[in-house]
Every structure is written in structure tokens, then in C-alpha cells.
């Protein structure tokens, strides 16, 4: 026995086991806790997921290659950080999280194929993944058919709700309405010009924004224009802006198009410190490409900025930079992706099981007090209650917090009166 123990000291795993044994007397003083620490696999996993006595496997499914890689890399990094932190705290139900990363390659069918592979072959207990709405739409039927659980980080258009998805980003009304209210009140804005990329998220967001401007704020929309993804010519719309002189330019242009858009705005002599511009699609990640000097003064409306001043965020930002480098920036979606593994851990522990049905049922009401954005809670509809914030872009590429809602905003993926 002592011989065994001596040999064991050489390997870290054995050492951990020994430490565990040393801890046994301490734990026995709290008999309930010792059971809760590592319940039997057969009890916590009745549906054949990849759960062993020491490990549980989850999937990470984002684009590591292709046009979306630049946006999704932050999410991958945040999820890995969260998993590492959870493991350092002892894992989930006494099991370390192991992850399998798959590449969606910015290609929607590939996302569906990989999601299926993760669920059917790897039997992962949860998937952290997807970014664009298109990839989520492709993956959703797979999640529902094979009964998986997806933690989806991006702010998105709403009009969706599934037992098999937890939406950790904001849906459109959550993100947009508070921002519009604020700018209408603060700037006395009455006329709005909408510019978006041409796909479902900007179109739905602008539809909601238009209804709100017309019906609630009693203002008017003086223009609404869409450009294909990747478009780099915005001169005609900039001329229209000059002609119509809107109080607010409201934009949901995504990805690389942003770089051209803000540079051309500046070149056309539109000064963002005088002309109010409210964007719902530019985070710190995008500013990296746009350049702080081209966008300084613009307002962005979302739930998280890297510059947020709260204890959680003060711990999160250095931890993220320590793991992924000083130069990395953290945008709204990156933070939302970080919530995924944590919310899953909290839900599994509340449900006392890895079973998808039990997690889906236990999700509503889960609170995460350690969120970098502050406090979040899962709603009945599997979206998050969260605050909405408005920030102003600064020269150094960071946002300065200008306004935040007093209370958490209720997620409402099927908003009445906005459809």
C-alpha cells in the first residue's frame, strides 16, 4: 500500500487522488456535500451522453476558417477560457470538462454536419457554438432531432425559441428599443436613416426599429437601405444621408463592410461627433478593423463593453488577456459566449443531471452572478434577462459607457406589435 502511494506521488493524477483521500475526513463532516460532489454516472446520465466518472465532453462549434473566423475566434477563446476556469474550480458535478472543437468553416451546411457529428458520434453533453443566424438555422433542426443543447452567443433577430437552445446574446427588441428610447430622449431625435447588410438579422432588426420609431417615438424613417454582405461601396447611401439630413443614422452593417462604411463616412465629411450614429453591429472586435479614429463618437447599443466597470469584468478582462494575449479585445458576443459554459454548469448542477430534458426544464430561473456584464438570469423562453447599454466609441477603440437601463430587460423573441 505504501509502495503504491510512493509510486503514485510521481504522477499528478495520483497526487490529486491522494489529496482527495486526504480530504475525505474533512468531507465526511459534511456528509450531504460529499454525495453532491461526484454522484454516480448512471444517475446523472441516463441518455448515453459522453459522461464518465471523471470527465464530461462538450462540443465547440464555430468557424475557425473562412470569412466568419475573424468574428468567431473571440467566441472560441471565451468558451475555452470559461471551460478552463470551471475545471480549475473542480468541474461540473465533480467531472472535468473536455471539449471537442469542430470547424464550421463559415459554411452553413458544414455547421449542420458537424453538429450532427458532435451529437451522434461524440455524444456531447452540450454544444457551445454558432454565430450567424444562418448557421444557427442550419443547426437548429439537428439539435431538435437528436435532442442536443446549444448555447448560442450572438445577438440576433428573435422570432425563434427552442427547447434545445439557450440564447446567451440579446434578441432584437432587447437590444434595440432601449437604445432608440435613449437617443430619442437625449438627442431629441425624430428622423432616422436605416442602413443594413442584406440578410435576416438587419432586416428584422430594422423592422422592429421602424415600428418603434413610428408608433412609439412618433418619429419617421427617412430612408432604409440594404447592401449585400461584403459590400464596400457606400457612396450612394452617404449622398442620400447628406440630402435627407437625418437626426440619427441607425446601422446594422456587419463584418468587413463596416471598414469601408466608416472610412467613407469620414471621407465624405460626416463628423460623428455632430451627426448622431447608433450602431447595433459594431463591437470592439470590429473597431479593431475599422480603426478607432474612423468611428470615434459613434454610439453602439448592446449589453456589454470591455470597459464596463464592475468587479466581475475586472477579473474577466485580465484573465482573458492572460490566456489569449494583451492585444485581444473583447466584444459583446465574446462575453456572451463566455456565459455559455457557466450557465450550462449552473444548470447541470441545479438539475443534478446531464440529461438534456432535465437541463432544458431546469434552465428557466438560472442566475449567473459572475457574468462580466453583471447579473443575468435565464427566462422561461430560454433567452437571458440582461441590461442594455449605450456606449460611445473612443479613439483608442474602446467604448465609454454613456447609459444603461436601470433594470434587466425582459427578452421577448416574438414581440407583439413589432411583427
Amino acid at each position: 500500500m505504501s509502495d503504491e502511494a510512493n509510486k503514485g506521488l510521481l504522477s499528478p493524477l495520483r497526487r490529486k487522488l491522494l489529496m482527495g483521500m486526504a480530504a475525505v475526513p474533512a468531507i465526511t463532516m459534511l456528509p450531504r456535500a460529499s454525495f453532491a460532489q461526484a454522484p454516480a454516472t448512471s444517475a446523472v446520465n441516463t441518455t448515453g451522453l459522453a459522461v464518465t466518472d471523471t470527465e464530461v465532453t462538450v462540443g465547440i462549434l464555430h468557424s475557425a476558417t473562412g470569412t466568419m473566423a475573424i468574428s468567431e475566434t473571440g467566441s472560441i477563446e471565451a468558451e475555452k477560457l470559461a471551460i478552463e476556469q470551471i475545471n480549475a474550480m473542480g468541474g461540473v458535478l465533480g467531472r472535468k470538462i473536455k471539449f471537442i472543437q469542430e470547424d464550421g468553416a463559415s459554411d452553413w451546411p458544414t455547421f449542420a454536419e458537424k453538429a450532427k457529428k458532435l451529437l451522434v458520434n461524440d455524444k456531447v453533453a452540450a454544444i457551445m457554438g454558432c454565430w450567424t443566424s444562418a448557421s444557427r438555422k442550419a443547426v437548429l433542426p439537428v439539435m431538435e432531432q437528436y435532442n442536443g443543447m446549444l448555447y448560442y452567443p450572438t445577438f440576433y433577430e428573435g422570432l425563434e425559441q427552442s427547447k434545445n437552445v439557450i440564447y446567451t446574446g440579446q434578441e432584437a427588441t432587447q437590444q434595440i428599443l432601449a437604445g432608440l428610447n435613449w437617443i430619442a430622449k437625449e438627442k431629441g431625435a425624430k428622423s432616422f436613416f436605416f442602413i443594413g447588410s442584406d440578410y435576416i438579422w438587419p432586416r428584422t432588426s430594422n423592422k422592429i426599429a421602424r415600428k418603434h420609431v413610428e408608433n412609439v417615438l412618433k418619429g419617421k424613417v427617412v430612408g432604409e437601405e440594404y447592401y449585400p454582405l461584403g459590400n464596400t461601396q457606400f457612396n450612394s447611401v452617404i449622398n442620400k444621408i447628406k440630402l435627407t439630413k437625418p437626426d440619427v443614422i441607425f446601422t446594422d452593417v456587419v463584418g468587413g463592410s463596416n471598414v469601408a462604411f466608416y472610412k467613407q463616412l469620414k471621407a465624405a465629411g460626416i463628423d460623428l461627433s455632430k451627426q448622431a450614429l447608433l450602431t447595433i453591429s459594431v463591437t470592439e472586435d470590429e473597431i479593431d478593423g475599422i480603426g478607432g479614429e474612423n468611428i470615434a463618437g459613434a454610439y453602439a447599443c448592446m449589453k456589454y463593453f470591455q470597459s464596463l466597470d464592475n468587479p466581475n469584468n475586472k477579473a474577466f478582462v485580465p484573465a482573458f488577456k492572460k490566456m489569449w494575449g494583451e492585444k485581444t479585445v473583447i466584444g459583446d458576443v465574446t462575453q456572451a459566449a463566455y456565459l455559455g459554459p457557466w450557465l450550462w454548469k449552473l444548470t447541470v448542477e441545479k438539475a443534478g443531471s446531464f440529461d438534456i430534458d432535465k437541463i432544458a426544464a431546469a434552465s428557466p430561473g438560472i442566475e449567473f452572478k459572475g457574468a462580466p456584464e453583471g447579473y443575468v438570469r435565464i427566462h422561461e423562453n430560454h433567452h437571458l434577462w440582461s441590461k442594455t447599454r449605450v456606449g460611445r466609441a473612443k479613439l483608442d477603440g474602446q467604448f465609454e459607457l454613456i447609459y444603461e437601463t436601470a433594470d434587466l430587460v425582459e427578452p421577448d423573441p416574438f414581440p407583439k406589435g413589432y411583427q
Partner: protein
Amino acid sequence: MVINLRFFNRSELMGFIVLAAVLFVILPLSLDVFRLNLVAKYLTYAFVALGLVLCWGYGGILSLGQGVFFGLGGYCMAMFLKLEASSVENTKIQSTPGIPDFMDWNQITSLPLFWQPFHSLTFTILAIILVPGIFALIIGTAMFKRRVGGTYFAIITQAVAAILTILIVGQQGYTGGINGMTDLRTLKGWDIRPDHAKVILYFVEVVLLFACIGIAQFIRLTKLGRILVAMREQEDRVRFSGYSVANFKIFAFCMAAVFAAIGGAMFALNVGFMSPSFVGIVPSIEMVIYTAVGGRMSIFGAIWGAILVNFAKTSLSESFPQLWLFGLGALFIAVVLAFPNGLSGLWADYVQPRIDRLFTSRKSKSAWKDNSVADGAPAE
């Protein structure tokens, strides 16, 4: 057997038997349903590759727009499936129940006219063949009658692919835009999603593929096939001999389009959705690459090319999520540099002679040697 021997020469017969054994017996027995469904997805590209062998390998017409026909076939099928999935009951959460979900998101309140006929399966099946066929006929007539060929034709097909993608993405209320048509569920009430349905769909697809192989082989063996080859080698001589070169080219192009469309329709059934990412320039070029890797002169080579390249894509991306694209690129460069005739050239140069030696007591046939010298392959 006698007919078979005439229909296929010995090496083709071997190729036929091997492919049939692998697709009908070995793969279904050795793979789980998930992997089998992936093979079904790869095979949808084999249809395209088969069309490219006829049109590019034999006819010498390089089309960089096969994604267009793959997409048209796929979208026709997807429209039918989407309508069936959008019953009033399934879509009661929408502001207008009974229309596809993406129309509802785009504030369309009634089903557009051109969607109406896709309630009928018969119409859909006809449309899968006729829409791409007629479209290819129009493009082909416009191009070949004016003697546009070679590089210019390739560029124009590529432009068509770009145009169709922009059209689909732009008209998202009618087409589903960049998201495509997702969540396809049933075919005439038969659920296409469970495992047993996947297995049945796989076999249906393999049978269809062999039917198409039969058609392609038949075309090859007729006078038509020989004229195609003659046209590829010396277009003017064929023209001076009194043949209407344009008509033969149009025919080959239309056949390739119809094969691609059948592949597209099977894709929608097997994968359960369709999106513009299969229509554009990149997928169209990928389709040419499969064919080149497999060997554009060989029906079986091209099919293996489509299967193996896609298999490599899946397995490389599973093992090396961040590096796999480089690996795939290197593979293409290596194959094209070292074996210009693709895998089938490799087979013909190295494997076939040994097999022949086994079968005949005579010395290895000089024909194979000649081939390998002509291809510039290194000596053994």
C-alpha cells in the same frame, strides 16, 4: 454478361463492379447511419462530376458554373419539401400561418405565384429535370451558336453562378436569402429525418447514380460520344465534316446540367436543406476540382474523386479544425502536379498493368506504357 462486356471494356467492368460493391454492400454494412448519410452527401457531388466528365472530359467544354444547376435542382426539391413542412399547423406561431417561415419574416403575406405549383410532387420532379435543362439550353444556345467557347465560356458560366447567388440572396422573401431553406421534414408525409429514412434515401440515391452512369456510358459508346471526343480534339475538322458542332455542345452541356440537378435534388433530400452556398463560384470550382482529382476522362475516376475529396474534407476538418484547408489545398496541388490525369490516371498507369499481367500470360500491353509516357508520368 456478354452485354456487359460489350457495354464496358474489361477495366471499366472492373470499375463498375468495385464501385457497385463498395456502394451497395461494403459501405452500408460497415458505416453507421451518420457516416452513411455523409457518403450520401458526397455522392450528390458525384452526379455533378459525372456530368462534368461528359461535358468537360469528353466534350472539352469547361463549365465553372455547375453549382447553378446543382442549386436549381436542389431549390426545386427544397421548395416542395418546404411547402410541405409549412403546413398551417406547423406554422401557427407566424403572423401568416401556412407559408414558409422566411416569407413570414420578410413580411410576405401570401404564397407567391411561382411557388404554387410546387405543392405537386409530379410537377417538382419534372421541374428538377426541366428547369436546369431549359436554362442550360438557353445559355448553351446563346453561347455555342455564336461560337463562344473555351475560356470565354468558362468565364460566362462563372458569371452566371455569381448572378444566381446574388439573386437568391437578394430576394430573401422568396428564396430564404443567405440562410437558405432549412428545416425540411417530410416527403408526401414520409419523414426524411430518422435513421431508417436516411438509409432508404441512400439506396435510392445509389440506384439513381448507377442509372446516370448507365446513361453516360451509353452516350460515350454511341457515335455521339465519339463526335464529342473528336470535337474536343479538333473542333474545326468536325465542323468541316458537316456536323453542327454547336448542337453537340449544347447537348453535352444540357446533360451535365441535368445530372447536376439530380444531384442537387438528392442533396436537399439527404441533407435536409438547401442554401446559396452551393450555387456560387466557390462550390462550382470545387466541383471541377473533384472531377480533376478523380480524372476527368473517366466516369468512375470522377465519381471516386467526388467521394474521396469530400471524405478528405470531412476527416481533415475533424482532425485539424484550424489547418485543414491548407492540407486540402496541398492535396489538390500535389494531385494535379504529379498526376495530371487524376486518380484514374494513376490507376491506369500503375495498378491496371499489374492486374493485366495477372490475367494474361503475355507481356504487359504496350498500350498502357504508351499512355504513361504520353502523360508525362515518371517511369517506375
